[in-house]
């Protein structure tokens, strides 16, 4: 008898065979246009802010805040997860995915209370993003001092 669970290698092949082939072209197409659309919405908001006389940096911050707020509430209403299933990386990679990654686990662990449940689990995915992002910025800043100070 050929048992697929015999070795690690066999098992890995067995899983690959059994798991459904994800239609990568279709996924990429959906990710492309949804991701592009989210960025375009951001661009229109940024243009509107600049039209109102705002600076570029402030306009970018407003875009982030609005997109994050929208994604957070759409996740709360369980709409964003449906978009995510359809668009994959198209909704994950824009800043909306960051907001979604905060709200999703927070809702799931709501039963554990508002402090450790919601307040703590909010950062299961966003935490690593902030740890690596901020650490990278500190290291880059330290490296930059050699070029500025010297």
């Amino acid at each position, binding site marked *: 008898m050929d048992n697929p669970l015999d070795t690690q290698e066999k098992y890995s092949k067995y899983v690959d065979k059994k798991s459904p082939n994800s239609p990568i072209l279709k996924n990429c197409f959906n990710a492309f246009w949804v991701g592009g659309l989210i960025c375009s919405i951001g661009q229109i908001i940024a243009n509107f802010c600049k039209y109102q006389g705002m600076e570029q940096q402030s306009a970018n911050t407003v875009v982030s805040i609005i997109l994050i707020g929208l994604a957070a509430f759409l996740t709360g209403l369980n709409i964003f997860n449906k978009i995510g299933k359809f668009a994959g990386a198209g909704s994950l990679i824009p800043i909306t995915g960051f907001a979604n990654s905060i709200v999703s686990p927070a809702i799931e662990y709501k039963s554990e209370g508002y402090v450790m449940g919601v307040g703590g689990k909010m950062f299961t995915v966003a935490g690593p993003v902030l740890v690596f992002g901020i650490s*990278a*910025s500190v290291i880059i800043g330290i490296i930059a001092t050699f070029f500025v100070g010297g």
Partner: protein
Amino acid sequence: MEFLQSMDWMQLLRCFIVGGIICIIGQILIDKTKLTPARILVIFVTTGAILGGLGLYKYLIDFAGAGATVPLTGFGANLAKGAIEEVQNSGLLGAFIGGVKASAGGIAAAVFFGYLASLIAKPKIKKQ
């Protein structure tokens, strides 16, 4: 409307295409590797920070606007850009202040709206 007339439609098209392509890279990582979404987000932010630190990401922002700033690579690049700019103003101290300062709006919004949205949401009852 005057605002619509002032819109740069070619810029919007570039934004759409570049933003879309960055998402395709993410989709390929999801489909072709076994990386979890958390790891993919971390990879994107860190890559953006490194490209921002090297001064390369700003060319993409000049070209595509929000197509480059809205994806998480833009978040990373913004952290790096903030750190470098603050270092120019206040030296080594700036390395610790600049990054978070530049992205404070996004981080605070994510924490605040994230908590608020979680409060109003009803937890799903899992069907077995």
